[in-house]
């Protein structure tokens, strides 16, 4: 049977110019991890770059505003050690000799861990998606801006 081809080419997609704070979400039941550089209310289209990773872009301006990683804990995480270290909160707390005493400590820890997770996902995507190498400079810029 013939293949179903994509509607938009990856060449048409572009990274954001303005720095944005990332929004992270993990759906445990679906095992999908999202990084968004726009509010989740903004409509996005998934552009699959491999069997786990999809770029999320805005249809109107073709701007890449996030990523979704499917089968995140089941398949993606075990392949990426640095991301695993950031993901396991217990390891991070132990490493930094912290023990959360209240909700404030947990919120603070999450804020500390967030850039590590985003960087971990960034590196993992670059490692697993060869087609992204040609876009890696723009990719790095977009991420470094959103992590300031």
């Amino acid at each position, binding site marked *: 049977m013939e*293949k*179903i081809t994509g509607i938009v080419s990856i060449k048409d997609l572009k990274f954001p110019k303005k720095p944005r704070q990332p929004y992270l*979400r993990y759906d445990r039941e*679906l095992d999908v991890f999202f990084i968004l550089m726009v509010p*989740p209310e*903004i409509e996005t289209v998934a*552009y*699959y770059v491999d069997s786990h990773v999809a770029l999320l872009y805005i249809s109107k301006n073709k701007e890449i505003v996030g990523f979704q990683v*499917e089968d995140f804990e089941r398949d993606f995480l075990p392949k990426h050690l640095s991301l695993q270290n950031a993901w396991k909160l217990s390891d991070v707390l132990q490493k930094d000799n912290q023990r959360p005493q209240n909700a404030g400590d947990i919120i603070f820890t999450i804020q500390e861990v967030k850039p590590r997770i985003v960087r971990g996902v960034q590196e993992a995507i670059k490692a697993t998606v060869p087609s992204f190498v040609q876009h890696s400079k723009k990719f790095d810029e977009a991420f470094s801006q959103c992590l300031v």
Partner: protein
Amino acid sequence: MPDKFTIADPNGKVVTCSEEQWNDHILANRPWMSSYEKRVQKTIEDPTAILQDAAHPDRNNYYRRYKSNYMKVVVENDNTNSAKVITAFVANSPKSSESIIWKK
């Protein structure tokens, strides 16, 4: 919790989306999907193609072509005659690892 909707696919399989799945997994991840309920139903009822998910043998992915993208509905088979909606969103194309099992 009641069902959000129940729709038969082109092969007569009855696909159900629970309120819980719709609210906690589709809208919670993508609030903008609230305006696409009819498209999700239409995608199950009259898809452009149905593909076998590569990572989950019990899942089929329904795609319906719209002007600039596809609506994708991920469905998990309970048995040969019924299935439930897992998630739904808009995609540029299927994954290359998915294989077509039904085409319009």
